[in-house]
């Protein structure tokens, strides 16, 4: 049978970077094909070429055996290709309906089309068991729901070849499972799916074949049935990956942070956090697990000083945290940093880095007042040296401090952020989604750093939707749902089912 997609010797150069070098492989019709590789391996670039975003410098793409020149996304769409991008391609202030109609309106007058489209959407939602309200506004939807909208768009346009670039990076286990159910349904209908992910378990769970890329090249393409995580990891990174990182025995020290009866309401008096209470000790990692959007982010923001709680008592190393009589949290994070609280924000692109700044300047962010001399000026020689040291220690690639950080891959940006916060020698470290979208090699190195910090006696609060990550790092686990803590487990009690129930709001019983 003709392969649905065939890449023939695709090459693509960005300046000095060979993003794709002589990439050739094919994807069978009606199969789910995995694509894995380190950050910056060239996966997204290849898919962008297929979707008409970029033009390859050389090489050919064949669809059903026909050579196609795909110059624009419009052409790709016409050829039945659909793509769910790593960063959602949705217009946030529009409804689901309008987002689906965008580019496929079916006529000049929207009003004439809307009822028909809406009906079709409802029908599709029912058939594929997609839980989406066509009239909801995107901004009001959870990440998972937005993901479903992206899929919905593709189904509506009856894409035959569906590209998913890291669709699961922001999803919970349940959401991932239901996404995979949909993909299986797709496959049954003879559609072809290309799935990019950094989670090898997912590759094993759902794909038929898998292609591994490294440095822009194809390292190998293997049937999933005959491979293992270890083999894939080895192919990706070029060395074996350690899953069970060594850690010192659990000996928690004195309490570092005590949260008592913390409450948070928004302007409309909706309770975002209710009755939160826990204690965090030196030398332990406490993970907050939960479906995203259940108050974890707010909790982190309050603890980092980025947001004020409505009420509650927060004691840090014996003193009350200085929320004081403030009207807003303007400038508060600085005070918290000075107390020794470091923060790796969940949304690194939004909060954690200034994309247009160099890596070196980003290593100053938040610590600008500590690094200035008495004239208020920076000593850039010293800062460059500091940055170089940091990049070396945390293996940031490329190790060039003058590069704009926006040009680094997500994983490397994350390393810079973590390195910056670790370097401040905090007593309390708040870490949000530290490995989202990061490749397995980098995950390993980030985890190693966090464990080293714990072993050095730092108290770490980790928010993660990845149960794998929680299991790998946590000493204790708090589960949140609906702004409340619904349960607490020791790591020995780790039990996916039980955690799943708690995450769904089944109260401690």
């Amino acid at each position: 049978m003709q392969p649905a997609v065939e890449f023939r010797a695709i090459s693509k150069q960005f300046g000095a970077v060979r993003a794709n070098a002589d990439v050739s492989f094919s994807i069978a019709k009606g199969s789910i094909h995995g694509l894995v590789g380190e950050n910056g391996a060239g996966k997204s670039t290849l898919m962008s070429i297929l979707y008409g975003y970029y033009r390859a410098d050389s090489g050919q793409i064949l669809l059903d055996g026909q050579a196609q020149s795909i110059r624009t996304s419009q052409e790709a769409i016409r050829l039945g290709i659909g793509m769910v991008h790593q960063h959602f391609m949705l217009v946030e202030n529009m409804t689901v309906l309008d987002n689906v109609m965008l580019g496929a309106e079916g006529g000049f007058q929207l009003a004439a089309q809307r009822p028909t489209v809406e009906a079709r959407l409802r029908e599709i939602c029912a058939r594929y068991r997609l839980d989406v309200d066509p009239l909801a506004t995107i901004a009001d939807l959870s990440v998972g729901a937005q993901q479903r909208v992206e899929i919905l768009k593709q189904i509506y346009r009856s894409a035959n070849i569906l590209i998913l670039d890291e669709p699961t990076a922001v999803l919970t286990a349940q959401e991932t499972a239901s996404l995979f159910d949909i993909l299986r349904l797709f496959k049954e209908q003879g559609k072809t799916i290309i799935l990019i992910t950094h989670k090898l378990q997912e590759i094993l769970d759902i794909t038929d074949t898998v292609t591994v890329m490294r440095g822009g090249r194809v390292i190998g393409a293997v049937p999933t049935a005959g491979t293992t995580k270890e083999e894939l990891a080895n192919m990706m990174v070029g060395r074996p990956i350690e899953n069970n990182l060594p850690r010192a025995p659990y000996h928690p020290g004195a309490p570092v942070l005590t949260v008592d009866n913390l409450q948070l309401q928004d302007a409309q008096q909706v309770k975002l956090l209710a009755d939160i209470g826990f204690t965090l000790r030196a030398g332990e990692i406490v993970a907050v697990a939960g479906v995203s959007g259940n108050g974890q982010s707010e909790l982190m923001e309050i603890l980092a000083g980025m947001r004020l709680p409505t009420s509650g008592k927060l004691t840090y190393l014996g003193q009350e945290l200085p929320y004081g009589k403030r009207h807003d949290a303007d400038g508060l994070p600085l005070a918290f940093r000075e107390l020794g609280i470091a923060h790796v924000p969940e949304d690194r692109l939004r909060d954690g880095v200034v994309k247009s700044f160099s890596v070196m300047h980003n290593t100053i962010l938040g610590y600008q007042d500590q690094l200035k001399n008495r004239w208020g000026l920076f000593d850039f020689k010293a800062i460059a040296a500091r940055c170089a040291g940091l990049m070396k220690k945390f293996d940031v690639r490329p190790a060039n401090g003058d590069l704009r950080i926006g040009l680094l891959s997500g994983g490397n940006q994350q390393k810079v952020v973590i390195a910056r916060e670790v370097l401040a020698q905090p007593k309390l470290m708040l870490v949000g989604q530290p490995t989202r979208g990061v490749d397995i090699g980098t995950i390993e190195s980030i985890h190693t750093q966090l464990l080293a910090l714990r072993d050095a006696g730092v108290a770490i609060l980790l928010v993660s939707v990845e149960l794998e990550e929680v299991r790998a790092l946590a000493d204790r686990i708090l589960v949140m749902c609906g702004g409340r803590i619904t349960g607490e487990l020791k790591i020995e009690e780790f039990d996916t089912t039980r955690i799943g129930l708690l995450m769904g709001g089944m109260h401690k019983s």
Partner: protein
Amino acid sequence: MTFADLHLDSVLVSTVRNAPVLIFAAMAGLFAERSGVIDIGLEGKILASAFVSAAVAFATQNPWYGVAAGMAISVALAMLQGYVAISQKGNQLVGGIAINIAMSGLTFVVAQFFFQQGGRTPDLGQARLFDVVLPGSAAVDNIPFLGWLYAHLIGGHSVLVYLAFGLVPVVHWVIYHSRFGLRLRACGENPHAADAAGVNVERQRYLAMLVAGVLCSFSGAYLAIVQSGFFLRDMSAGAGYLALTAMVFGNWRPVYTFLGCLMFGFFGAVQIQIEGVDLPVVGRIPGSLIQMVPYVVTVIVLAGLMAKSVAPKALGTPFVKSR
């Protein structure tokens, strides 16, 4: 001062007459900015179309040729702006301001070259657009209120006034209920999403600029061949910036923007009426201070009543494929 001193009737008629310059320009800006292109170049386009329409109307003695020529120049400038913003991916503010400055100089130079009247065109005389007298106006003119309403507030304006007011629902419909508008808004909010959905972002933005050019031209034509009857250097006198303000004020939404334009028109008219009048409490406000009334009101309204204005998210950022 009594209520009658306010001459509310006169104020309202004046509001209606003043607003079109702002309405056309603000609606033009709305199209451009909703597509993601900052249109600070409204002023320059108004001025250029005012000059060209006056000059052509004078030369041909036909106002409609003037309107058409004004449209041509305004569209040409909008395309230049589009080329800078869309194809060259240059700084949109710089592009717009460059056009404003260049037009302020060029209209004078050209006007001077052709007419030798100090950057003024000769009077248009019969080549002006005249006011429409609604049928039966004379008959009803004596009926209190209704006569005024029919013959003076609703009737008795130039065609362009009706066009301006008629434009508002049309723009509303196009922006919110047409394919063009959906794509337009998508390009201004998240061009990457629009692109991924198969919308040609550059084309869409050029189209938006085209519409902006057409609409803005009416503003200049109205100024020159309706309101004044000739072109005078720098006669746009900040109308482009005021229109932009009305648009920001209206949160980039057609109806609110329209209300913003009316507000400027209204307070401009009120200001005329209260000049030299003894007001309760404050007494007679000196002439020069009266001039600031519309602007002070705007600041107060912006600071006091309005929620944060939300610009289209991608406003001002050139669209570059790749995230």
